[in-house]
């Protein structure tokens, strides 16, 4: 559009082409283009705004929350400043000025009722901080100089080196401690990174469990969906529509109803166990535990997510002309070979789309594992939900969520490298 490139492209230079009314062709073309571009922008604007407000901003805010740590600096500004001078690895408690600054900060905090908040934040780093801040703030009126002595007398934690080390470490406006916690690491009071002991590790195992269960669910969906989609794509339209309704039925029933149905089927006194006992396959005292564990999650989620596999597979298979298989057969291939070498490769776009869809949905699935997962069948998202709504540790929830997001993106890129995203075919 710049005039430089226009003259480059037109080396003659002198005779610029004009439209009938004497405007240079180049300019009037650019004008026409601009008009259609503006119209296109106008058309996407509502969706763009919607996505911006409901998707990008929340995600950015989540990313921000996972490292954000302003509360300490905001609530205890004087203390944080005074602590700058203190050498935390020297082995001595901070000097009197630091205690004085803390008392001043807590006086204000007590009035603005923010002491509890900072206490709760610090409690993520070291348990006991919440009550330490709460009680100290409550008694702050009675604390008098020399502050160091009285504070330690009031709460002996203030006399411990570790309390101050942790406080100093978390006084920055940004912290990585949520991410460390999300991968089962933590800081020592002096700021070194340390792996948590196995009995306190939780999230890495949970991530792995989420990944392998999602993989298993994806594979199960594929195994179940492939023959069904094949059948659907070869049947006459009337029959295939009817069958398609059966496949889509899970979409139309409430998730709760379906899940309760699974509970009724799978529980110890449930239909399947009753049947197995009645047939004599298992003894009455050896009833299988199939719900409130990983099995329950896998069965129920496979059922819920099956349509997401069937639809892309079906739509791809429908476009494969039957003459491909016939051609392969006429060229001498057994039905099996024709299927493996000709039919299957042509369904890869559908397999890819379905698998990616099911895997990504299940990796962040929440409700079904929450209802039927019990202890061993809960996924990472259940813990994100727990930290969001029960423990209120939003920073950790955000860090876990961000890791999940990165996992999904990595997977997407991997898929693009291997299969090619333009090869994918949704419904």
């Amino acid at each position: 559009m710049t005039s430089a490139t226009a003259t480059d492209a037109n080396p003659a230079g002198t005779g610029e082409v004009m439209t009938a009314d004497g405007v240079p062709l180049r300019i009037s073309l650019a004008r026409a283009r601009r008009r259609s571009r503006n119209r296109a922008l106008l058309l996407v604007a509502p969706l763009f705004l919607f996505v911006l407000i409901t998707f990008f901003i929340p995600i950015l805010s989540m990313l921000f929350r996972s490292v954000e740590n302003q509360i300490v600096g905001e609530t205890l500004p004087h203390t944080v400043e005074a602590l700058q001078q203190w050498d935390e690895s020297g082995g001595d408690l901070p000097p009197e000025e630091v205690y004085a600054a803390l008392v001043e900060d807590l006086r204000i905090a007590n009035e603005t009722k923010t002491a509890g908040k900072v206490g709760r934040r610090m409690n993520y780093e070291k348990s006991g901080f919440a009550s330490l801040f709460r009680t100290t703030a409550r008694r702050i009126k009675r604390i008098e100089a020399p502050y160091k002595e009285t504070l330690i007398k009031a709460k002996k934690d203030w006399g411990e080196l570790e309390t101050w080390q942790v406080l100093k470490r978390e006084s920055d406006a940004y912290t990585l401690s949520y991410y460390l916690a999300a991968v089962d690491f933590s800081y020592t009071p002096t700021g070194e990174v340390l792996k948590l002991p196995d009995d306190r590790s939780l999230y890495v195992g949970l991530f792995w469990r989420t990944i392998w269960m999602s993989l298993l669910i994806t594979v199960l969906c594929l195994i179940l969906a492939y023959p069904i989609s094949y059948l659907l794509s070869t049947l006459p339209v009337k029959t295939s529509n009817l069958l398609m309704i059966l496949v889509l039925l899970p979409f139309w029933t409430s998730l709760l109803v379906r899940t309760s149905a699974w509970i009724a089927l799978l529980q110890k006194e449930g239909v399947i166990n009753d049947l197995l006992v009645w047939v004599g396959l298992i003894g009455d005292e050896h009833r299988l535990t199939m719900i409130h564990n990983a099995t329950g999650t896998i069965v129920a989620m496979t059922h819920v997510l099956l349509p997401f596999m069937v639809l892309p597979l079906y739509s791809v298979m429908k476009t494969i002309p039957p003459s491909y298989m016939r051609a392969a057969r006429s060229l001498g291939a057994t039905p099996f070979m024709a299927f493996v070498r000709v039919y299957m490769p042509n369904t890869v776009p559908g397999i890819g789309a379905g698998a990616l869809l099911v895997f990504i949905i299940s990796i962040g699935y929440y409700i079904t594992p929450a209802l039927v997962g019990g202890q061993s069948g809960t996924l990472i998202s259940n813990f994100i939900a727990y930290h969001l709504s029960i423990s209120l540790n939003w920073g950790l929830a955000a860090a876990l969520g961000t890791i999940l997001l990165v996992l999904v993106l990595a997977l997407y890129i991997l898929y693009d490298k291997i299969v090619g995203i333009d090869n994918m075919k949704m419904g």
Partner: protein
Amino acid sequence: MTDSPPPLVRFENIQKSYDGRILVVKDLNLNVAQGEFLTMLGPSGSGKTTCLMMLAGFEPATHGEIFLKDQPINRVPPHKRGIGMVFQNYALFPHMTVAENLSFPLEVRKMDKPERERRINRALEMVQLGEFGDRRPAQLSGGQAQRVAVARALVFDPDLVLMDEPLGALDKNLREQMQYEIKHIHENLGVTVVYVTHDQSEALTMSNRIAVFNDGVIQQLAPPEDLYEKPLNAFVANFIGENNRLLGRITGVNGDSCTVDVDGGGSVVANSINIGGEGARTTLSLRPERVAINPEPGSLPNIFDANVEELIYLGDHIRTRVAVCGHDDFVVKIPNSSHHASLEVGNSVKVGWNVEDCRALDSSD
């Protein structure tokens, strides 16, 4: 083709129904000789594809038996029949290159690599696509894809190749060129071809014999020139080439000839081919180029008054529509030679023809 070598393919009393109510192929008997180019020609829905599919093994025959080299093949699955096939939409495998497509039938036959490459190159040379081995089917033009499909059906040296309207998707020029090429390949390789089309000029150009299908029945099986010159029934006479029909009733049979009272008036002496006895109804069939305009009186056995209705100038001949014997769709082709007096619409003329050129056939439709 009658006695000497045994036929490569033999259909014996083949019947086929898809729904258990309608027979789409009715009692088909057909022999295909070794090295023959046999075309199944017929209107849409006449059962041509069905016959081909039964031969290829994709549809079971409802009744009867098909023999390949004297072996019954009803129970032989398609991949063991060793029959090459060219599909209408080519059915090239889109995820394989051209060379891989050609390699497929060789790989499933467990041929070793040098042999495969030799054959692939030979087949690609045969269809003049030597440079195209690395292309994907999507990168080929219609004609090129068509050639690859032909090469793939031939690369494993089958004795028999089936082609179901292989040129249906090509434009007219390309189609004519491909007809020539396929014919050429057939002659060079000596392979037997069963070809399906509903384009009669395609059938006439390419085939050794043509089986004209209608309504699940072979109406006539004959070499192209016989089909045109000596149609055995009204359907074939009408389906192949241009034809004048005069409907009438037989009033007398006299050896090879018969007298027919045409419905619109006039009595015609015709060559009796396929007729009932006296009093039966018949269709007279007469090629437009066998009709003479204003013949010398008495020079032809059939001479009638006619009225010129329409003249169409077509360069080498003038297509003239006249009303004669109460039929106003009677066409005469007048060669464009200078000594012919030019006609005008509305002129009264005389038209005449020989007994041998006017064939009395069955009365159907």
